């Protein structure tokens, strides 16, 4: 990818971001809520892509951290008042980080199909634990009645009960995660995990104890998944075993593949596309799963590098037909800005 094509992509992403910033002022209440969902899944998908697309670890249990953080938020939130975010956020993230450390300690030493199975098994263990635990609502789940408060002394810094404030809170979290991961990937640590993905044995032979690098990557991915779960707990006001089931893990995996592994903006786009289509297909027909399946098969067949691959190809093509290169780029924004 030459620099001009990647600059085109950057303009495209920035204009999408501007659309996201403007959206709550024009969009209906329901759709603003839906976009919040999309952004939360964008965070979750980026964290899984750190494992799949950059470290080469295909986890089929990533929803475990997402759901666990929701439960942790429910546990630390009193029923009658809001918990302070300064307490709740570290509690949820450190809690999921600890879970990822334990699960990673066992699973990261395996690879390929065994890694898939062991991450799935751990996630299912958590699923059944919460499913059977009647103190935490069993299969019905548990409510989170109040969003955590963001106060400093007696001053309220952010009123997260305000729909629009909460929207921007999630957007900022998504951007922070995006830039945090970019920083990680450019760092020496990022070079090593990408080496592991490309050729783990060679990476070890060059002098890196790959187990620890994979474990750290696993814990970072789990913690960011925890952040997504924390936001989802606030947004939905309920957490149920479904949040950490294998169905949810499969959905995140599909989002990453759909969006394009090994890019950071791809999984965000994948989350937007997937949730938009889910919502749309559900309106059209009760057999919406069928449509979803057809769509996923079509993407895998025709866009093996996902949406990000499509965008890269379009940018390269645009760059080639130099004439009037900016116009078609802005046209494209409209399409996936909604989706």
């Amino acid at each position, binding site marked *: 990818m030459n620099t001009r094509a990647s600059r085109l992509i950057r303009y495209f992403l920035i204009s999408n971001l501007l659309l996201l910033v403007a959206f709550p002022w024009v969009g209906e209440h329901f759709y603003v809520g839906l976009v919040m969902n999309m952004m939360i899944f964008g965070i979750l998908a980026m964290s899984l892509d750190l494992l799949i697309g950059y470290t080469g670890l295909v986890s089929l249990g990533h929803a475990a951290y997402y759901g666990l953080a929701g439960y942790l938020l429910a546990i630390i939130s009193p029923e009658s008042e809001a918990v302070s975010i300064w307490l709740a956020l570290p509690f949820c993230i450190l809690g999921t980080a600890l879970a990822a450390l334990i699960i990673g300690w066992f699973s990261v030493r395996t690879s390929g199909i065994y890694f898939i199975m062991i991450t799935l098994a751990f996630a299912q263990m958590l699923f059944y634990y919460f499913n059977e635990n009647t103190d935490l609502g069993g299969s019905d789940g548990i409510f989170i009645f109040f969003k955590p408060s963001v106060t400093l002394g007696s001053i309220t810094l952010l009123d997260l009960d305000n729909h629009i404030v909460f929207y921007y809170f999630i957007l900022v979290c998504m951007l922070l995660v995006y830039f945090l991961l970019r920083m990680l990937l450019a760092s020496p640590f990022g070079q090593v995990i990408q080496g592991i993905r490309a*050729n783990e044995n060679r990476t070890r032979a060059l002098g890196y*104890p790959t187990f620890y690098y994979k474990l750290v990557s696993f814990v970072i991915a789990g913690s960011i998944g925890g952040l997504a779960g924390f936001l989802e707990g606030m947004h939905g006001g309920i957490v149920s075993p479904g949040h950490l089931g294998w169905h949810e893990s499969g959905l995140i995996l599909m989002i990453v593949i759909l969006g394009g592994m090994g890019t950071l903006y791809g999984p965000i786009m994948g989350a937007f596309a997937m949730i938009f289509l889910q919502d749309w297909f559900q309106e059209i027909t009760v057999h919406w799963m069928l449509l979803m399946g057809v769509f996923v098969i079509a993407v895998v067949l025709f866009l093996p590098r996902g949406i990000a691959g499509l965008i890269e190809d379009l940018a390269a093509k645009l760059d080639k037909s130099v004439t009037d290169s900016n116009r078609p780029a802005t046209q494209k924004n409209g399409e996936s800005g909604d989706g």
Partner: protein
Amino acid sequence: MTAELILETRDLTRTFGALVAVDKVSLQFRRGQVHAIIGPNGAGKTTFINLLSSDIDTSFGSIHFNGQDITDLPPDKVSRLGIGRSYQKTNIFPEFSCLQNCWLGAQSRLPTSMRFVRPARLYDEVREHADKALRDCGLYQRRNTVAAHMSYGEQRQLEIGMMLATNPQLLLLDEPLAGMGQEESFEIIELLKKLAEDHTLILIEHDMDAVFSIAQQLTVMVNGQVLETGSVEQIRNSKAVHEAYLGEDEDES
């Protein structure tokens, strides 16, 4: 022949089920020398190198590097002690550029790569080492080329470049000339001669002309065992070696 020992194996043994691939091999390697290991296919040469670099576990016996027992160390620790290796089957990062390939080698000499904030490209000392390795292996001009897009010979050069980037004292080279044309071989041989000036080399190679032009010490392995070891002259004149192995090759050439 009184240079200090850099590496020593004692009764080094590796079995795969009933097969004894390396059978009680006790060898001494001296600093600054080129020590070639020759032998027919299946003699256990590659297994021996894999044991030295800890790519596979030792069944029995021990390995000592600069006096330290390294038998049970994992491959990353062995690498960090200063033993670099190249593989018979090209083992690189195909989708990375040459620079990135060597970069990973050079970066492994930082005290740790568990560094998360400063971009890797700002580590000047890593860049210097990676650039030097690229220059030494003759790929500096190709530094931004993706490894998978290069010729087989260039990939073999890169294989050596990555090893050099880790700044090793001892180089384990498993058939560096495997599958190469004459001209490419010649370049690699020149490179090996240059490396021999300030490194210790343990070399597996089938090309006898190359072996005789570089090596000072020779070990002949047959069926996992050491048949004979000594200076090149000693081996050339060894009756046992001629009968078992060398004779035919020399007649051909």
